[in-house]
Structures are given as C-alpha cells and as structure tokens.
C-alpha cells in the first residue's frame, strides 16, 4: 500500500492522525488542495484524493465542503473508487440533502448494471442514505432488486427493506415491500431467506401488533430447512426468529426441538446459545415424563460447558446466560460444578460470574469441594472478588446445613487474617448464619467482638450491632459495646442508627435494670435530634411501646424471627421467564427486560414461555412447584414463587401493602401472545423490586420505617397501639362487615384448603364486592392441636392484578378448634399474569407452622365497576366497532324471570341495562359492563316471554373474558 505510506510520510496528514488538537480546526488550504485533486483528470490522482478525504472523515474532520467534488467522482467504472465515494455519501448525505439528489441518477443507473456486485452495491448504499427525497427514488430500483435473478442482489435488497422501513415505515407498507419480503422467506437461496427473516423480525419488533412474521407450521418448516444450509449468521437470525414461535402442541414442539438440536455442535457460540434458547423455550411444552424430555435435558449440558472454553468475552455472555438457565432448570448443570472453578488468570468479570454460579450449584454432594475452592479465592487480590467469595462461604452455610460448621470455622480463620475487608464481610455473613441456626454458633461471638474497632463499613457495623443486641444476655459488656457506638450516633449511616436503636431496646428488655439510662439516651437521640423520619418513627414506636405495655413490647421486639431464605438474588420468576426467552441477547447479559434499556416501541413487547399443553394438569401445576418443599426450584414450572422467595414477599407485604406499589399500570399496546387484555402490568412488576432484602429479614434493612425492628409481622401487634400503623387497620374498620346491601351476587363459601393439606388449617371463603371494594371473605379454622399465629397472605400474579390491599387481620392467635372470619380488602393494582382459567387465583397463606398454597376461582362479577354504564351512542358505536369475530353467544336455561326483574337483578352486580327494545314479543336488553382493568363488555340479552331459555350475545375486545362473564350472568340470574 505505497499510497498510504506516502500519506504517513506526509507530515501534515500524519500529525493529524495522532494529534487530536487539529481535529476541529480545518485549514482552508488543505480543503482547497483536495478540491483541486478531486477535479483532476488523472484517475489515480482522483482516487488518492478521495482516500484522503475518507481518512479525514474518519478522524472526525469536517470535509462536507467537498461534497459536490466527491460526488462528481461517482461516475466511474472503478469499483474501488465507487465504493469510496459511496462511503462518503453515506456520511454526509444527510447534512447536504439537496446535493445528495445529484447522486440519485447514478444509483438508479447502477441498479441496472450488468454486474450483480454493482447492482447490490448500489441498492445497499442507497438504503444507507437517509434522506427523505432520495427514498422516493429508491422504491423502483428496490422493487426490481428484490426480484433480481441473482441471489446476492436479492439478499442485499432484503436488508434494504429494513433500512427503508427505518427511514419511512409508511412508505414501505404502501409500496407493498413487506409482502415481497415475506415471499423471500420461501426463496431458494438460504442466505436470502436468512436476511429476509432478519429484516422481518426487526420490522415486526417495532410493530408489536402486526402479524408480519406469520409463523405457521409451513413457514417454520421452510425456516428449519434453510437452517441447515445458510451461513452461521443466517442460522442465528433463523433461530432467534424461531424462538418467537409458539408451537401448537407438544408434538410439534418436539419435532422442532429435534431439528434444532444438531446446532448445539456448531463452532459459533451464538448459534449454540440461540439454539439453547429455542430448546429451553419449547421444552416448557413437553410433558416431563416423556423420554425425549430427559434426553434433551442431557444434551443441553455439554454445549453449555463448551462455551466456557471460548474467548473471555463470550464466556462472560455464556456465564450470564447459564446463571439464568441454572435458576430455571438447575438439573441441567448440577453435576458440572468443576467447570465453574475459577482460574487464576480469568478476567475479573469471568471470575465474579463463575462464583455466582458456583453458589447456585452448591449442594450437599459437592459442598466440600466448593468450600475448599472458596477458601482459596478468599486469599486472592481483587477486593470485590474476595468479598464475594467470603459472602459465598456464608451462603453455603445457609444453603447446606451439614456444611455450616465447617463454613463457620473457615470464616473464623479468615477473620484471623485481620485483612480489614475480609473481616467485615465475614461478620456480615456470620450474622446471617446466626439467624439461620439460632443458638448454635454463639461461641464465636467473643472472637467477633475483638474486631469491633476495625469495622468501618456501615453494613458490617450494623451486622455487629445486631449480633450484640440479639445476644445481649450472653455478652457481659454488651451495654459498654453499644454505648461506644452511641458516641458518634449522628455520624453513623441510617442503617447503623436504626440497628443501634433496635439493639439497645433489645438490650433494655433483656437487662432492664442496668440499661435504663442507655435506652433513654438512644430514644431521645432518635426522636429529638434526628431529621430522619424513619429513625424518628421507629424511635417513637419503641418509646410508646415501652411506656404503655412493656410485656407487649417484649413480645414484639423479641419475637421469633421468620426464617431467612436459602437463595438470594433469585430473579423474580416472571422476569426469569422473560429473560429465558431472550437468551443470548443483551437482556440476558444485563438480566433486565429489554424495556429497561431499549428506547421506543421495541422494548414494549414482553416475551413469555409457552404454557404446557396436553395432559389436563394445568390447575395442578402449582403444586408441583411447592411439593418439593425446601429444595424449591427443583421442579421447574413454579408458577407460585419458590418458598424462599415467598417468605421474602410476605415480609415485604407486611411493610408495604401492595396498594402503595403505584398506580394501576397503563394499558400498553397489544402483546404478541394474546396477552392484550392484561395490559402492560409486567412493566410495573419489574419496577417493584423487593424493597427489603428478604435475606436480611428486615432486621437490618435500612429502608422502611416500621416493621423491621419488630422482627415479627405487625399481625401480632397489640391492638392498644394504633398510632403509627399504616392504613390497614383503619381501612378494615371502615369497610369490614358494614357491607352495603346492594344486592350484588355473592357465591356461597366453599372450602378452598382442606385441613388435611394444610397441617390442620382449613380455609373456606368467597368473594364479594361491597361498596365498590372487592373483598375476599375467609373463614379460618384451626383443626390442629396447637395454636396458630402469624398469619399472612399473598397472591400469585393473576389475570386482573388482584392483590391484598392490606395485611391479613388475624389479631389474636387461633387456638385449637377455633374459627375466625376475616375479610380482606383487595386491590386490582397488583402484578398481572394471564391465568387459565382466567379467573383463577393462586393464594399462599402463611402461619407459624408453614406456608400453604391453594387456588380458587373468583366470580368475574367482582370486577364489574360501578361506573360501567355506557352512553347509548357510545354503546352503538362500540358495538359496531368490535369485529363480529369477537362475538360469542350463550344460552341461559331455566330462568324464570321477566326482563325487568332480570335487569334489576343484574344491576345489583354492576351489569347496567342501557336500552330495551321489544321485537315480536321478544325483549332485547342491551347492557354494558366495565371491568376493573378498563375492559368493556357489551351484551345483548334476548328474553322471550314464556320461554325460560335466554339467549345472550357478548361482544368484547378481549373475547377471552366472555366465557367468565357468561358464567356470571348465569350465577346472578339463577340466585
């Protein structure tokens, strides 16, 4: 490249390449010189000049002034020069739209060139020139190129449609390019197919409603055929597209899996990961008892392990994905612990990810090995890594009980190293171990206390203070220790302050005589001298509690603490499902849904795993998730979050009732998998992160004001203390039991949870809507021999976002053979997930004994809101507007009411009659209903005098609800 050498020798140019100071100032002389060279007659000189221009452009110099001169060089038969000019055009056309038009003619001519390489080059470049005026001229050449005889031109034209769509979507639709593009999916050339798929997938992403990628068994078959033939990149496009398809049944799902599995041996990691994505997704649909299912599971492990021998960047992507896969299906990699052992010269990002996965895979079988490794890691250099390793040792102790003792002694060894951050980290995890195994390892407290002075991080200080408070009776000088912290009270972080407050109150309750002064000091510091509302409120609560009823105070403050969960940082199940659908992509690397980092409409679409079809176990499936008990995530399709998670949620619920979780989610655009009626509830779901780390059990969490210090749920709070408790109590008095006689239909109570299944707790109940508030009315009966306390309730995500609006108010312990009636107000702003049947609700109830799960169905009439009366005009227009496909007809038999009686009865349940018409002795009632999530249902009820059979037609934009609405009609009219 003699030319470039010349350039570099040319001092002027060479210095610009390296000296950024010259970037912004362009010497007039230079531009002038280039101009002259560009207009030279000699071809070689021209080319050199264009190269210089491109070089300047690359380093960021503005050479737009040369636009006409460069464009003049475009008409040439020298392909290389042409490419250079095109490159220039792509960069500057947008800033010089009028002059860019000058180039159009050449493009159009080139699109007809005899050489396919030039035709393709022209259409490729034209698509990159993002000037509106040019796009008009692009249409005709593009149309020709899409049907070109040469596959190279067609594959380039396919991508060009995506480019054009990005500039002017309407134009692409109007010109019918989308249809041509769809036709290309059946092209004979695999690369054309792959590019068409890529282009269509991207266009479809920005049109969530459109049915662009009309995937059906035939087109899927075509894609699978092309998959065997196209380039590695094409395979990725096709696999990613396949992942969006939902097979009709398990058989189709299996046959696709069979044809995708060979891709697991591809040398390209991205092909492998995309294949894994398709398999992970479609596997959901396969029955678990199928032989093929277990074969497939076995096939997944080796390729995942192989990914770890790729380059570090890819290893990182693979590890982030494996982290998800391990959470979803731990069985796949459970025997592969060793490959995640950290290598000394792994980059730090690989090390940290490996460590994460090691903890997830730790089990009784491999714990000895894991611990030995972790101990090695704890002596490494990188601070973050060491901290994480120490923390991991603590996790092992909590996860595998048999190893707890060894973990504690390892941690003690580490504390002996006196490396400051190791000591602090160790203390934080030892606190958790104390929580998990009370009264077992307290002998180490003395060692911990020796390190009190070296703790300078808030979390470690808070942990140490918690330990001192919790075991105040065993530490002789607990009061001195805590007092030493008090001196700098105002300089401490909130976390430490809150913890100190609680610890001193605990100390006081345990040793009241010696510590009265101390407790007064801390209370006044917290309440009078602090600006922090959380701290102040907690201070006041303690103060009042101590002064009104010390016994109650003891019960509250020293109550038994709920268990802490075994797993931390588990990704919330809905998000996990979504991320599994995004394996290989950025979302899976960030562990965030695309909407969190992608702008515009592209991120809105939520992907979901398909539901299992086939055997009718759909209603039973939640039990699968929980039957496994402690080893929760073992059974994969856990619709109800695993136990550990749920405990966290319950705690969470005590502190912040779901009503505070924000306004009802706006109904965002339609979702692909027919989720339209559920709106974009998932969006808000993702936003609600657990406000308290479930692991800390609220005791140390610095965030919400109350609750934390009480240890136990507010449910055991004595009634005398009504001051700062949240709205829950008040609400209940307002609403509970009063019930306006609106005549709304309330189904009779049925047994939801038999005592046999719930260790003696029987729950029966029903749902009602009273004065606009949905209520769950429960009867709890204790059929066991022991007292039940600490009740709490939690719902799984459901179709209409039902969620408890407050805690379950069981104020007194429930003795043996006692029965209590409770009514629980519900809100409809909870997280949303489509259920089958639609009105299915999965509930978890916790008490001091265990957590129990059951599911029940609520009458959808509960969700009919009071302002559901539609204007007549609107009704008419809406009725016409809803397509006839959405209409469904039902028969109500044996109903002996006349039309007026029926109308008034229905009105009681918020089904409003808007108009009545009588035609040939037949009464036609037009009615409207509005659901709590804003969906309207329109109905036409035909009543023939003397005929006990009614005909009802329902029209709704979300036809899924029709069946439920019909059931309500039947129930209301017949009761």
């Amino acid at each position, binding site marked *: 490249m003699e030319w470039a050498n010349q350039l570099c020798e040319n001092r002027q140019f060479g210095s610009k390449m390296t000296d950024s100071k010259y970037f912004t100032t362009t010497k007039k002389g230079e531009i002038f010189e280039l101009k002259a060279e560009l207009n030279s007659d000699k071809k070689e000189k021209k080319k050199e000049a264009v190269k210089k221009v491109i070089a300047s452009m690359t380093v960021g110099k503005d050479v737009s002034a040369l636009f006409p001169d460069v464009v003049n060089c475009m008409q040439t038969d020298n392909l290389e020069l042409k490419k250079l000019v095109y490159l220039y055009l792509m960069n500057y056309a947008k800033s010089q739209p009028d002059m860019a038009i000058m180039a159009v003619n050449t493009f159009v001519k080139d699109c007809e060139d005899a050489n396919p390489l030039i035709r393709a080059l022209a259409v490729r470049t034209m698509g990159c020139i993002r000037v509106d005026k040019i796009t008009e001229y692009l249409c005709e050449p593009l149309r020709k190129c899409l049907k070109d005889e040469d596959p190279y031109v067609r594959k380039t034209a396919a991508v060009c449609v995506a480019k054009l769509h990005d500039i002017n979507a309407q134009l692409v639709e109007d010109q019918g390019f989308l249809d041509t593009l769809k036709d290309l999916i059946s092209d004979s050339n695999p690369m054309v197919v792959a590019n068409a798929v890529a282009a269509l997938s991207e266009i479809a992403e920005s049109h969530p409603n459109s049915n662009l990628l009309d995937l059906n068994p035939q087109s899927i078959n075509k894609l699978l055929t092309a998959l065997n033939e196209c380039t*590695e990149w094409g395979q990725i496009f096709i696999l990613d597209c396949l992942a969006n398809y939902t097979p009709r049944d398990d058989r189709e799902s299996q046959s696709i899996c069979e044809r995708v599995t060979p891709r697991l041996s591809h040398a390209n990691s991205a092909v492998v990961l995309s294949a894994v994505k398709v398999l992970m997704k479609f596997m959901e649909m396969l029955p678990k008892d199928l032989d093929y299912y277990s074969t497939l599971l076995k096939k997944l492990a080796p390729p995942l392990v192989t990914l770890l021998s790729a380059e570090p960047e890819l290893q990182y992507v693979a590890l982030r994905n494996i982290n998800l896969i391990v959470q979803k299906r731990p069985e796949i990699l459970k025997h592969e612990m060793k490959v995640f052992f950290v290598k000394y010269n792994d980059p730090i990002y690989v090390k940290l990810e490996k460590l994460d996965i090691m903890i997830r895979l730790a089990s009784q079988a491999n714990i000895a090995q894991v611990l030995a490794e972790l101990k090695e890691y704890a002596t490494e250099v990188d601070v973050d890594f060491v901290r994480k390793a120490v923390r991991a040792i603590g996790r092992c102790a909590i996860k595998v009980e048999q190893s707890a003792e060894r973990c504690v002694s390892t941690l003690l060894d580490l504390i002996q190293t006196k490396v400051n951050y190791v000591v602090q980290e160790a203390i934080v995890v030892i606190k958790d171990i104390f929580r998990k195994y009370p009264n077992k390892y307290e002998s180490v407290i003395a060692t911990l206390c020796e390190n009190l002075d070296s703790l300078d991080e808030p979390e470690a200080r808070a942990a140490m203070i918690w330990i001192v408070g919790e075991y105040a009776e065993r530490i002789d000088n607990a009061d001195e220790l805590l007092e030493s912290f008090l001196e700098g009270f105002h300089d401490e972080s909130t976390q430490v302050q809150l913890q100190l407050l609680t610890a001193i109150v605990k100390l006081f309750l345990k040793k009241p005589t010696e510590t009265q002064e101390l407790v007064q000091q801390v209370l006044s510091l917290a309440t009078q001298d602090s600006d922090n509302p959380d701290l102040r409120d907690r201070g006041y609560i303690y103060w009042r509690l101590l002064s009104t009823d010390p016994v109650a105070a003891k019960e509250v403050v020293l109550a038994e603490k709920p268990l802490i969960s075994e797993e931390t940082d588990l990704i919330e199940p809905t998000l996990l499902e979504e991320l599994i659908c995004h394996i*290989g992509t950025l979302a899976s690397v960030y562990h965030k849904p695309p909407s969190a980092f992608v702008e515009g409409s592209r991120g809105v679409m939520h992907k979901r795993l398909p539901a299992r079809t086939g055997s009718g176990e759909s209603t039973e499936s939640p039990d699968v998730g929980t039957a496994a008990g402690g080893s929760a995530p073992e059974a994969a399709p856990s619709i109800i979050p695993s136990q550990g998670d749920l405990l966290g949620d319950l705690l969470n619920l005590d502190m912040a009732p779901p009503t505070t979780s924000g306004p009802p989610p706006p109904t965002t655009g339609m979702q692909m998998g027919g989720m339209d009626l559920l709106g974009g509830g998932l969006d808000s779901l993702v936003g609600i992160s657990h406000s308290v780390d479930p692991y800390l059990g609220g005791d140390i969490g610095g965030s919400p004001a109350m609750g934390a210090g009480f240890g136990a749920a507010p449910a055991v709070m004595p009634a005398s203390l009504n001051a700062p408790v949240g709205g829950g109590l008040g609400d209940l008095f307002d609403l509970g039991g009063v019930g306006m006689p609106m005549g709304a239909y309330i189904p009779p109570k049925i047994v939801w949870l038999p005592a046999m299944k719930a260790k003696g707790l029987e729950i029966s109940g029903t749902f009602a809507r009273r004065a606009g508030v949905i209520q769950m009315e429960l009867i709890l009966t204790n059929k066991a021999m022991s007292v039940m306390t600490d009740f709490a309730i939690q719902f799984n995500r459901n179709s209409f976002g039902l969620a408890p609006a407050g805690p379950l108010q069981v104020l007194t312990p429930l003795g043996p053979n006692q029965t209590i009636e409770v009514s629980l107000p519900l809100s409809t702003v909870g997280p949303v997930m489509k259920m089958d049947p639609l009105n299915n609700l999965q509930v978890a109830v916790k008490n001091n004994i265990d957590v129990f799960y059951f599911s029940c169905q609520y009458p959808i009439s509960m969700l009919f809101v009071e302002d559901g009366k539609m204007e007549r005009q609107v009704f008419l227009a809406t009725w016409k507007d809803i397509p006839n496909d959405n209409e469904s007809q039902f028969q109500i038999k044996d109903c002996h009411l006349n039309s007026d009686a029926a109308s008034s009865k229905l009105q009681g349940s918020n089904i409003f009659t808007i108009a009545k018409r009588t035609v040939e002795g037949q009464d036609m009632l037009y009615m409207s209903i509005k659901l709590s999530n804003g969906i309207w249902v329109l109905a036409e009820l035909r009543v023939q005098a003397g005929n006990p059979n009614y005909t009802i037609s329902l029209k709704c934009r979300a036809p899924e609800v029709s069946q439920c609405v019909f059931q309500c009609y039947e129930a209301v009219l017949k009761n």
Partner: protein
Amino acid sequence: MIGGLFIYNHKGEVLISRVYRDDIGKGPFPNCFHKVGSTESYRMRNAVDAFRVNVIHARQQVRSPVTNIARTSFFHVKRSNIWLAAVTKQNVNAAMVFEFLYKMCDVMTAYFGKISEENIKNNFVLIYELLDEILDFGYPQNSETGALKTFITQTGIKSQSKEEQSQITSQVTGQIGWRREGIKYRRNELFLDVLESVNLLMSPQGQVLSAHVSGRVVMKSYLSGMPECKFGMNDKIVIDKQGKGGATEEQSIAIDDCTFHQCVRLSKFDAERSISFIPPDGECELMRYRTTKDIILPFRVIPLVREVGRTKLEVKVVIKSNFKPSLLAQKIEVRIPTPLNTSGVQVICMKGKAKYKASENAIVWKIKRMAGMKESQISAEIELLPTNDKKKWARPPISMNFEVPFAPSGLKVRYLKVFEPKLNYSDHDVIKWVRYIGRSGIYETRC
C-alpha cells in the same frame, strides 16, 4: 442489530468508524464533551467519545466487556493494544456481536496480518470495504475469508467476466459459501493436525481438582474440485456401535462435547455421528472438542513450600514425566511464583536452567527436552524482606508449560476419506499427513 463499529488505538483515537444506524448518536452521554452544533457527524462523535472516556480511559480495570452508557451498549474486544467496539441501542444478540468481532479480527488478520495501529492505518480503505460487505445495516453477512478474497481484492480495476461474477455471487450466498468451484492442484495433499491443550488444576496434595483437554483438529487441504470428505476418529460412541464384531483393541475416548466448522453437516453428525463435509481450500479448524475422562497428564508437579521464620522460604519442586519413555517432551517451563517482598533467591536444579525473574515475581525453570518416565527436581531458598503488610502472600499456583508429541486425550485419527466423483483422482491418490501435538493449557498446581 449493531448500530456502529469503531476501532480505536490505545490512546482512544478513532482509526475506523463505520456507523450503520443513526440511533446510536443520541446521548446524552455523561462525562462527554458536547460540541456545539448538532450535525449528524458531531452527534456520532458523542458515542465515540463516550466509549473512550468511560472504557478506554477508565481508571478502573475493565469490569465487563459490555458497557451500557446512557442506554447505549458498547461491546468491546481488545487485540494487542487495539480496541474494537460495536455499539447498539437495541436488544441485540450479544453472543453474535462478540462472535462477529472475533470474526472481524480473523478476516483482517487474513488480509493484512497482525492487527496493529500501523496496519489498520495502512489498510483503512480495505477495512471499510470489508465492513461494507460483511456487515450490512448491522446484520453480519458471509464473512468467510475464502469467499471474500475472490472479490474484495484491492487490486481495483480488474473487471470480471460474466461467468466469474455469477460464480462469485453464488459462492457468497450459496450453500457452500466457503469454497469456490474449479480449484485444481497437481498434487492432492492434506495435512491434519490434532492440537490439544491439556488443562489441570491440582491441589498441593496431588489431588486432581479439575482436568480437561480442549482439542482442535486443524486441516490444511490442497484438493482439487469439490471433494467430499469423511473424517473418523476413535470416538467411543462410534466404536461401541461398530465394536461388537471387530476386535476392540483400539482405545476409544469419550468426547464430552464437540463443535464443528460450518462446513460439517451437523444434522448428519447428530443422526449418525459421522463427520462429513466439503472443506474450504487451505486451512480450517475442522473441529473442536473437549474431554475430561481418562486424560493422560504428561507431567506431575510436586511442590513443597516451607516458611522458615518470617524472612525465608524454602521451596522444593519435583516434576515427573508420565508417558512412554521413547517420547520426548519439549519446551518445558515451570514457573514458581515468589512473594512480592523477595530480596534474593538461590536456586539449585538438576536439569535445565533456572532463573529468578524479579520483574515477574517468579522463578522460571526451563528444560529443553525430557523423555517419558523421568523425574527432575529444583530447590530454592527465598530470602524475604520483613514487611508490615498484614495481608498474607496469596501463593499463586505453580504453572507449567510444555509440548508433547501425542494427544493427551488419547484421540486417534482413524481415517479421512476423500471422494471427488467428478475428477479422476481417488482416495488413494491423496497424500495425507497426520500430526499430534499436546500442549499445556492452564496447567497449575497449587502450593
């Protein structure tokens, strides 16, 4: 898809910048100098600057190869001191982006050798031309060097005949995108290299914590026409399937997993476990595989470290070779880490040369050749400076490098058959060469 691709030198100056999508210019990027005026090109500079400021010039060590700045994602890989960064605003396939960046490096290396600032500056027109071809609107296209070299030549003016043109396009887009038609050699010849790297992590007590072999079968072929090839090795699954009749004196190996060059018909492998393909001309990596069972560990390292007081360490390391005495291992190197506060080292070794390298904090012991079933020893006394540093020395593992003339996994090539029905040469006429090389990967023993 990929919105733009930038190549930077170590100072963070842009050498190549190719923008495919406008969206990546939209910041606002923190810590970035915003230039007045908002013309397209200036806005693009913002993304360019954002990466420089936040990644290349970051004070901290790079914590992730993917960085998100102001909702824009930057993927990067580094080759010597050159940074390649792909930028996007969408939820792209991250694995694909990295694979593409590696591929991009391969293509550049194939065209102009080492990726260095000098070479990139000298070939920037070529790089733009390549980028235009292999990445269209951010979608990776055919990036097989064999195919690319047929029409991206930089010789410019040469105009092809009509047949040549259509041959090029059908090859670039076709099923066999990696090989062109009409290749002719007077002598049909092929070379197979089985290259393995054996990895080991051993505890001080000699317990194998983890060991695996990652191997590659590299094929260099000079064959005429479109030869149909079939490759066979002592894969346990295949041997067991055929095994019953013939005597199974051949040792078979259990392959944990393998991946293939895109020329191999994967569905055929999945169904019959046979490896059939039409190879690209010249060199290609036919297969990669991994084994963990019955690995021959060529060397065993036995460390003994003793702390004598606070200022002295005694280290003794024995290495034992564990393979046929007739074979010779080469380029043996044992690296024994020393503490940072080492003040002096005395070494005695029976074989080879040993040196203390202060700059690397290690004693490096080199032995040129060593036969199988032998043993050698080194002992060293390390003097330490007293320090106040509370933190204990981390004792990095002792690592080893070597090369042996056999495959530690036990893999054997059984056959490589070549069929070319259209041309008149048969399998027997092809001259075939097979070579086995086992190298150390990460071969560490903790001490």
